[in-house]
């Protein structure tokens, strides 16, 4: 909401920038990015956040998003940045926003953006995904993953904004493995469930988890009988060791002595 007594045609300046990590969970993973953006703007109003607005004829709230997970894919690691016209306590803001959004759209962290530390987008070049394949025998998944890893190139097809495109889904994948985690909710009781752990670098055109699944079908005929459930676990910079660095790390204040 615009402040009182603002200069004609002007908007209050941004005095604080905050970066948020949020999750899309459960049924609300079907929220598209557009849906989320509308819900987030309403949540800013409900929570009374002193958001800053852009200049111009139709002022827009200052929000910028880092690459959003596809509709239908859950995520524990979505990021956005907001510009505020008054300073707030990040944890208070996190709680207010989290309460203002539907359960399942959860605001997990808020940190003050460090000046000169670069944009969020500059700190993200890879994603860590978890693919759950209910009713798929882990051994079968294992074999498919192996075939995928051994292939130099795995061509897949997808509809993009530019039309149908064929591209390689192999190169961008830096890690793919079948894991044995058992703390995950299983889709079908008793039925086997294969879980694939996947790290993919950001490339153009983007290689998404469903492209890797297409790739597994292409190299080994892996056909999950029910739609796999995909979750983004993390995003960030990929280190030489293959780890992903949390993009908010650079903003976090060093622990104060005492």
């Amino acid at each position, binding site marked *: 909401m615009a402040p009182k007594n603002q200069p004609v045609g002007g908007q209050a300046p941004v005095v604080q920038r905050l970066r948020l990590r949020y999750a899309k969970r459960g049924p609300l993973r079907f929220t598209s990015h557009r849906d989320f953006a509308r819900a987030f703007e309403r949540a800013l109003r409900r929570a009374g956040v002193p958001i800053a607005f852009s200049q111009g004829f139709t*002022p827009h709230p200052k929000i910028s998003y880092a690459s959003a997970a596809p509709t239908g894919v859950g995520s524990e690691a979505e990021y956005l940045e907001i510009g505020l016209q008054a300073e707030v306590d990040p944890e208070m803001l996190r709680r207010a926003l989290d309460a203002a959004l539907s359960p399942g759209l959860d605001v997990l962290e808020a940190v003050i953006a460090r000046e000169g530390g670069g944009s969020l987008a500059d700190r993200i070049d890879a994603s860590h995904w978890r693919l759950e394949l209910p009713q798929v025998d882990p051994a079968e998944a294992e074999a498919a993953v192996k075939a995928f890893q051994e292939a130099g190139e795995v061509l897949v097809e997808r509809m993009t904004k530019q039309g149908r495109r064929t591209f390689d889904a192999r190169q961008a994948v830096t890690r793919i493995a079948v894991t044995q985690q058992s703390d995950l909710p299983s889709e079908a009781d008793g039925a086997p469930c294969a879980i694939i752990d996947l790290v993919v670098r950001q490339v153009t055109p983007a290689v998404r988890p469903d492209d890797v699944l297409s790739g597994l079908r292409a190299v080994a005929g892996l056909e999950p009988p029910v739609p796999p459930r995909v979750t983004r676990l993390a995003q960030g910079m990929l280190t030489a060791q293959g780890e992903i660095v949390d993009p908010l790390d650079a903003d976090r204040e060093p622990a104060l002595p005492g």
Partner: protein
Amino acid sequence: MSVSSVFPQLEQLLPRVSKPIQYVGGELGAVVKDWDATTVRWALMYPDAYEVGLPNQGVQILYEVLNEQPDVLAERTYAVWPDLEALMKEHGVPQFTVDAHRPVKAFDVLGLSFATELGYTNMLSALDLAGIPLDSADRGDDDPIVLAGGHASFNPEPIADFIDAAVLGDGEEAVLEITGIIREWKDEGRPGGRDELLLRLARTESIYVPRFYDVDYLPDGRIQRVVPNRPDVPFRVAKRTTMDLDAWPYPKKPLVPLAETVHERYAVEIFRGCTRGCRFCQAGMITRPVRERSITTVGQMVKEGLEFSGFSEVGLLSLSSADHSEIGDMCSGLAEQYADTNVSLSLPSTRVDAFNIDLAQELSRNGRRTGLTFAPEGGSERIRKVINKMVTKEDLIRTVVTAYSNGWRQVKLYFMCGLPTETDEDVLEIAQMAHEVIRAGREAAGTKDIRCTVSIGGFVPKPHTPFQWAPMERPEVIDARLKMLKQEINSDRSLGRAIGYRYHDGEPSLIEGLLSRGDRRVGAVIRRVWEKGGRFDGWSEHFSYARWIESAAEVLPEYGVDLDWFTTREREQLEVLPWDHLDSGLDKDWLWQDWQDSLTEYEQDDCRWTPCFDCGVCPSMDTEIQIGPTGKKLLPLTPVTNTLRVPV
């Protein structure tokens, strides 16, 4: 016995359908209750797509009223698109609620809200998907009571075979009363099963149970009579009227969807009913008398509704919002309160004679001008007298000039085609009117850069209106007039360029006419259309005229009637109409007199500012006009800006 969620099965299908978010619920304001902790359970359905159904006020109000009762659970369900319908059939997933994804069949009541008759085929799809027999007669004790409400239920005869009961009129108190009857019947151990429950509902004298009434026909196809087939149900069923809207300030917690819907705003009804007396308007006739919500209650609802929802637009709803006795103070008060925010105000279509410069300024206070819509409805002075829309061309020109000189660049004008006694000339006058609007508007605005849109649709005669006896015009005639009008608008190139033209063809209106004034025999047509795949009849991309024509031709001859008989035939004074046993309070003789007055172009006043003209409603329904002014003003709000609302 507890009922489990069908979400695990549904979830497998969602990645394969368009806009899956519409099926997952999770709206702000949605309520999920423990099934076993409640005794009476309602599934409320708006039988259209989620994007249209979710914002519906009627459903939102009843949902909240019901859920406020501790032992009552209400959830919502909407029509699923054909892509999901096919998958649900293939995988055996039943019609579900979006709140907790429970199967609709498990509820005690399936309450359908029919704002329009075009939702009938969608009701059949939902019943079918739910596993509830289509015919009321085939349902057993495990099936919900299928209950119709909303404006179309003032003539539910075409769907009489498919529903178990219908409520005419306002629902707030009705749903609580029905809940009470079901609660009692369940507590007593469901004596007499389903039939006894329906009987108890019918005995209220304001819930219509079609199975307790028989319809006899004359050899020529007309209805001979509609009479109860048992001694203990009333001859006529009365409508409901909620008096004192201040006592019912709903919705308090509007539903805020994640999916995109037709309206993203907080809507408050500022009054119900309308006595302007437009003769085509069923809504105005069946919702009498006028009952205003006071300026202070509206102010309170807006404040709380916006805080709750985070919406940035407020809609002040009613059948003719500018007629509220304190509309000026209401708009200026709200504009003042929200002056420093990006909240905007809007009114649905505004009466030409009630719009003025003050209102124009309040609606455009923070530079945001939401659309302005006026509905002169008829092109010529003569036809406006026939329909009792008492506005003159001068009124209209004066009003649009006000709008254009207050910064609006675009106004919308609504008209109807195919009105009783209408000639080509009446319709062509719309073009002259639009030309004059542009000419006067250009002068007032001092620029050529203004526009108006002429929007025109086919007239559909409705039950409980003076035009219930009127013949419909044939679609060919309507389409020819619409084409003529287009040419006439474009006959002046300069003016024509500034005029947008939107029209609805005559064909869908004819089918709406069949469904509006149909009787029980029309049910067979609806069923046949649905069997042939008819769904979403309110959507031009799904509506098939051919399918309706074909189906009508297949099933109606058996009864010695046809589509024309229901639509383009004029009724006589003494003909028994299918809805005569359903009491809207309007005196049939008064309606007939008003029909005759219309043919002689005689106008009827408004009982709010002239004496009661005995339409029959108030004495028979024991109601009265409730209007202001209260003289109260909206107080400035304490600014809430920059205060985080952190939950404790």
